[in-house]
């Protein structure tokens, strides 16, 4: 197979520390598709855009810049699997590149730890790399599938911080996107459209911590819309959204007395299954909501 594309794999917090399956899935599935994800040693929290952005944007810039510099020192572009991380790492990189004044401020701070942001690398979400025909593309994904997820209806949750604000980003429409559905279809599953697909999961902006009931009520609205179309599972591109949907369902049951048992899987976990990884290898048992009904359907 052709020369593999190498990236510094930025993990963030929730993937490695709550859903390790998605971490190993990303590394192994990507390898099969010619993308090599190398550990980004010493990376920290991106930091959480909601929390840090709300407290002091300058701290947010500086902290994210530190992670960027680690990758600059590796001389590799960053790949990541979390929308929240994407907002911090991609957006700060983008801002620092075009705003000299900001870059000056940040480098003032980084001097304290003998680091300097140079703006030499780019940042990508693994999903966009997989979709990009230059790097991988739908066909390669199809070809890598050994156990197609036949007969599974899957609802896609895009999340917010990957594609919005549209003007800053490069993903085109944020009203009726379909590219992730295409990636789901490539795994042999059936993507299903549902009402208000682009609505937020409810966790962001520190709201999950500030007013859990409020944030869960938003999640609940989405779950209702997804259940309406009888989806077997919901897939996401963001461990934080995943946490909100997965652990959130348990909290929703406790607090609102409604039960859905809707399996929630990161796209990398779906890809892993389709490429023949076992549920054990994906640590699906760590999910709050059992993925078994879904697994029975597809395996």
């Amino acid at each position, binding site marked *: 197979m052709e020369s593999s594309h190498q990236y510094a794999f930025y993990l963030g917090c929730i993937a490695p520390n709550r859903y390790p399956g998605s971490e190993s899935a990303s590394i192994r599935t990507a390898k099969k598709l010619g993308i090599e994800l190398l550990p980004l040693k*010493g990376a920290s*929290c991106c930091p959480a855009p909601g929390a840090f952005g709300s407290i002091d*944007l300058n701290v947010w810039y500086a902290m994210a810049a530190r992670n960027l510099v680690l990758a600059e020192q590796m001389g590799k572009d960053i790949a990541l699997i979390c929308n929240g991380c994407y907002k911090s790492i991609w957006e700060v990189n983008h801002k620092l590149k075009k705003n000299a004044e900001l870059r000056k401020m940040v480098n003032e701070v980084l001097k304290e730890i003998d680091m300097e942001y140079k703006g030499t690398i780019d940042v990508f979400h693994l999903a966009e790399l997989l979709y990009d025909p230059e790097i991988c593309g739908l066909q390669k994904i199809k070809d890598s599938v050994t156990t197609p997820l036949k007969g599974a209806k899957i609802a896609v949750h895009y999340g917010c*911080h990957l594609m919005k604000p549209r003007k800053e980003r490069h993903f085109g429409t944020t009203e009726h996107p379909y590219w992730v559905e295409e990636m789901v279809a490539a795994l042999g599953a059936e993507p299903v459209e549902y009402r208000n697909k682009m*609505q*937020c999961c409810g966790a*962001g902006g520190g709201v999950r*911590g*500030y007013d859990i009931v409020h944030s869960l009520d938003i999640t609940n609205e989405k779950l209702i819309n997804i259940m309406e179309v009888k989806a077997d599972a919901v897939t996401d591109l963001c461990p934080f959204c995943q946490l909100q949907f997965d652990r959130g369902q348990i909290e929703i049951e406790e607090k609102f007395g409604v039960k859905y048992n809707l399996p929630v899987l990161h796209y990398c976990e779906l890809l892993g299954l389709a490429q023949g990884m076992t549920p054990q290898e994906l640590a699906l048992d*760590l999910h709050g909501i059992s993925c078994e009904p879904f697994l029975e359907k597809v395996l």
Partner: protein
Amino acid sequence: MAKVKGYPEALENKLRDRRFYGEDTNPEFTKTVKKISDTIAHMCYQCGTCTASCPSAPRSSYRIRKFMRRAVLGFENEALTDPDLWLCTTCYSCTDRCPRDIAPTDVIMAMRNLAFKRDIIPVNFLKTVQAIYTTGHGVPNNDVNRTARKKLGMAADPPTTHSYPEFIPGIQKILDYFKLKANADRIVKEREG
């Protein structure tokens, strides 16, 4: 300034003077918000597209349009002391649809930054800071997860600050540069003793 009527407290609250007084507005506030948010916060024409796009609005009294209005008129205190300020999930739907090409989400973030300067901040935001200060992670690893990772044939800890704690002092330096940890500890202490 709203007039204090000198009634007994209960009545004073019930009959609070709710008029819009010019003195309650601060033109500087509009400018500062513009500067921090890097968006034309003063250009809002109150069409309501933001509120109608907002996932929080239908389930609360949070009205981003109101915050935009406060930004335009410079109602600093009213904006920064309103607990609804913290109900924005930063989903950016308003930003994508705003016909005036304003980024209301970033206006909210700017106001939150200004609120923090007055120690107005929900504790959970500060807990994240504390966690990162000590571990480098907002959501740190735990034993259940460590065993799970091992089962997957991975290192118990990810190759982040968890496996390379020597990077943590650097992170602490950055946070201390902004006195963030100190302030966080102080405020948490005040709230929770």
